[in-house]
């Protein structure tokens, strides 16, 4: 399951970066594409704005087939205060822009990719990730209602991500 999560995040990150290279965040002194997985970062009360924050929530496993089919729900939270130079009056437009970027990244064909194992690449080993035998595939993005929180506009979108649990995979 973790390999499927990692693969989906890397794919989404690369696609979002291609759609809008200017959407970046600075995290621990490094500029990177404006997307992160909350559980992989330091716990913080700070809510990043103008970035996509992934949270893995739902999980179901269908063990009827030859390989168990894992369905995971990925919540993608994002928010914007608008541009301070515009007095925040463009926050609706900026949220709309983030909606469009997400649609472009998630719904771009193909909506699947080869599942990768990144464990061997950890710790600066220099080893590339290992391609696994099955694919990760996902549905279209489902948008929740936009919520106004003070001057901030927030939205939660969800994507269902599917993968097959391979033999020996944790």
């Amino acid at each position: 399951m973790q390999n499927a999560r990692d693969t989906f995040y890397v794919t989404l990150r690369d696609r979002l970066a291609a759609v809008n290279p200017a959407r970046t965040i600075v995290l621990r002194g490094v500029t990177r594409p404006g997307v992160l997985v909350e559980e992989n970062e330091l716990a913080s009360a700070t809510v990043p704005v103008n970035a996509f924050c992934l949270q893995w929530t739902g999980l179901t496993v269908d063990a009827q087939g030859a390989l168990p089919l894992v369905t995971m729900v990925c919540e993608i939270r994002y928010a914007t205060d608008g541009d301070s130079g515009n007095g925040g009056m463009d926050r609706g437009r900026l949220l709309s822009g983030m909606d469009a970027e997400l649609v472009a990244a998630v719904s771009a064909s193909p909506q699947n990719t080869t599942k990768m194992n990144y464990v061997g690449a950890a710790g600066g080993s220099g080893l590339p990730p290992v391609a696994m035998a099955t694919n990760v595939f996902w549905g279209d993005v489902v948008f929740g209602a936009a919520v106004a929180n003070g001057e901030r506009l927030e939205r939660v979108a969800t994507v269902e991500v599917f993968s097959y649990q391979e033999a020996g995979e944790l």
Partner: protein
Amino acid sequence: MGELRDVSIVAQRAADVLLRCGGGRKVLLRLPAPASPGDTTEQLGLAVPSFQDVALEPVVFRKARATMADGKAAKSELMVSATAVNAVVGSLGYSAANVLFATAFGVLIDEVLMEIESATESEVGGATYVYRLVLRAPLALMV
């Protein structure tokens, strides 16, 4: 202009004296080391950063205005000398104090790591003389 600068210096010195007299103590700000550029495994939680503790002094830690709600962790306040914060911001190369606090993993007080929930500042003449941090105790310590 010169008067404003004088006023801000006086405010900073007065704040430092008040913090020292009001139970001034030292706490440690826990900062993660900078991330490795382009390291995907760090973004996947496979590599964890190292941390460094930086002393902040004088500060006043108080629970006098602590807010508690059922099922939620207690909150406390930490008043921090702007002189101390400015020294850390300058020496570690941060662009601003709010970046420093947003980057910090927490504040170590009596061996308890408390999360920074918000940071506000008080200023006079355009210069900050004290920072007020709202800290949240770990859920494990909830009673």
